[in-house]
């Protein structure tokens, strides 16, 4: 399948519009304020798409036919059924009634999914037929397996919208799994657009995974704690949505800027407890309380090794040279840490290919998230220039590091 960024962007907007319509309908019916936090196009396996939890979700599934064929899933966490039923039928229902709760979800799901499809159809200026909704229930993975109708370890292209509500119980997610052929027909690239093949994006995702595995090995070597790459995603998101991937709490991060083909940013994000535990593993004498000079230095150093080994993997595959800046340590609100990155990239691009991977310690002492945000045009050029029969990395490429004496300086002007 060939993809061009302009079409992907248009489809992202359609999915966002669909999610907005669905969210509006929930608000009309329940008076609960809703907010579409992020809409993304995700290239991942079903296993990676699910949140990994066993928590029961309830919702509805519909099949689409016509201009867009595929399957859509609306999923609430199970407590939403009770909340929505309470709002809708509070005057008639005194005792909790599971059957009534489920039918409330099905009824409201029906109304929301038709709103979702209307959003797409209006944007496409066409008609999309939908099947009657079917109730679904299970873990997020079970629901998604049902939606994608494919092997759990096969890469699929899907659309996901996350909607937050003022009553958290009714936060919901909307997934759309288009039929590949249907999407190719709709995604007919314009003649003057650079075209990325889906295989090239899949390769980029593998580069992220391989890079994350190298990072994991380095962290294990430095801390003595076994670590594992849990999941990785390649998302295509409006640049302003990218920070919504991070929760609103405080985090510790190391950020580097890299320049070359492509340029961009790598950010390693720890929750505070994980950051403390990594420091403890690296520097047993550290206080373990605040992030003082020693702790910052330790995080910066491990972050430096992590980010450089990650970018090294990219440079090898893309057969190019990528320079990296000195690492910056930041302890702040997680979303605010990513904000200056998206602002900087957002000067020149509307969307970003956001690659991320989660690495966890086997003993559960820490985990961290790795995010890579490349310049979109440069990434496109780098990927489309790869031979279609690309096989193994060469060792001709390299990463250029800042001179040692500049590592603690703040300027980084050499890497302009």
């Amino acid at each position: 399948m060939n993809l061009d960024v302009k079409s992907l962007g248009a489809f992202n907007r359609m999915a966002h519009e669909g999610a907005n319509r669905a969210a509006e309908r929930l608000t009309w019916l329940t008076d609960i304020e809703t907010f579409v936090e992020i809409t993304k196009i995700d290239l991942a396996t079903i296993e990676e798409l699910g949140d990994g939890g066993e928590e029961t979700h309830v919702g509805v599934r519909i099949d689409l036919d016509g201009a867009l064929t595929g399957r859509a899933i609306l999923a609430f966490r199970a407590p939403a059924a009770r909340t929505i039923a309470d709002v809708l039928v509070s005057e008639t229902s005194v005792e909790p009634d599971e059957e009534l709760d489920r039918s409330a979800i099905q009824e409201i799901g029906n109304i929301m999914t038709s709103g979702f499809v209307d959003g797409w159809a209006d944007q496409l200026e066409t008609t999309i037929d939908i099947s009657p909704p079917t109730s679904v229930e299970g873990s997020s993975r079970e629901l998604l397996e049902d939606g994608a109708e494919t092997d759990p370890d096969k890469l699929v292209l899907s659309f996901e919208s996350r909607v937050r509500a003022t009553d958290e119980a009714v936060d919901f997610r909307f997934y759309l799994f288009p039929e590949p052929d249907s999407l190719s027909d709709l995604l007919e690239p314009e003649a003057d657009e650079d075209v990325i093949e889906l295989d090239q994006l899949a390769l980029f995702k593998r580069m992220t995974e391989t890079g994350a595995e190298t990072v994991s090995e380095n962290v294990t070597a430095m801390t003595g704690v076994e670590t594992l790459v849990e999941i990785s995603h390649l998302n295509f998101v409006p640049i302003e949505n990218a920070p919504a991937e991070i929760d609103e709490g405080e985090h510790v991060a190391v950020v580097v800027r890299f320049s070359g083909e492509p340029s961009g940013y790598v950010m390693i994000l720890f929750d505070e407890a994980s950051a403390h535990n990594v420091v403890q593993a690296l520097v047993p004498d550290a206080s373990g309380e605040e992030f003082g000079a020693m702790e910052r230095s330790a995080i910066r150093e491990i972050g430096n090794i992590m980010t450089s080994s990650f970018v090294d993997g990219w440079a090898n595959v893309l057969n190019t040279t990528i320079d990296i800046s000195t690492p910056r340590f930041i302890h702040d609100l997680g979303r605010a840490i990513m904000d200056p990155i998206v602002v900087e990239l957002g000067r020149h691009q509307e969307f970003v290919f956001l690659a991320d991977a989660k690495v966890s310690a086997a003993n559960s002492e820490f985990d961290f998230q790795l995010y890579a945000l490349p310049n979109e045009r440069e990434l496109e050029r780098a990927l489309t220039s790869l031979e279609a029969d690309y096989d193994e990395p060469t060792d001709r490429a390299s990463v250029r590091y800042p001179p040692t004496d500049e590592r603690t300086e703040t300027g980084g002007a050499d890497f302009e």
Partner: protein
Amino acid sequence: MKVYRSDHEDRTGGTVKVGVADFAVAVGEARLTTSGLGSCVGISLFDEEAAVSGLAHVMLPSSNDEPVENEAKYADTAIEALLAEMERHGAKRRRVEAKIAGGSNMLDFTAIGETIGTRNSQAVLETLERMDVPVTGSDVGGDYGRSLEFRSETGTLYVKSANEGRNAI
């Protein structure tokens, strides 16, 4: 409370969340929030008499007069659009007052010229001046992130940050 968003209208409910490159207008008693401001700038506009409040979260200084898909992304177009939306719902421009927060400089990779956070704050102030909207409170700059909550019952903009605590302006 009625809520009008940068891309949608007519919702009702409790606290209103405003995303990045987004704005919302509320009529009546309202709480408008936005989180994770780094270099971005948050702007609250309030017409107390009409009880119309607005909050925008802008990413970049200027649209450079080019057509834009999302006017809430740029300081100049977002403030104009937010003010227009507030006027549609009963606000009078001469009564509107502004408070701003954000525009920090957390990552110093450029180290040359003004940072994007500073330029965002300046663009917001210039646009508000051009539109004759007085700025009655400001908490900008520094090297830390902020989250905002505007409460219309007092017209206060609460600024929370990880390291600097909570500031009411």
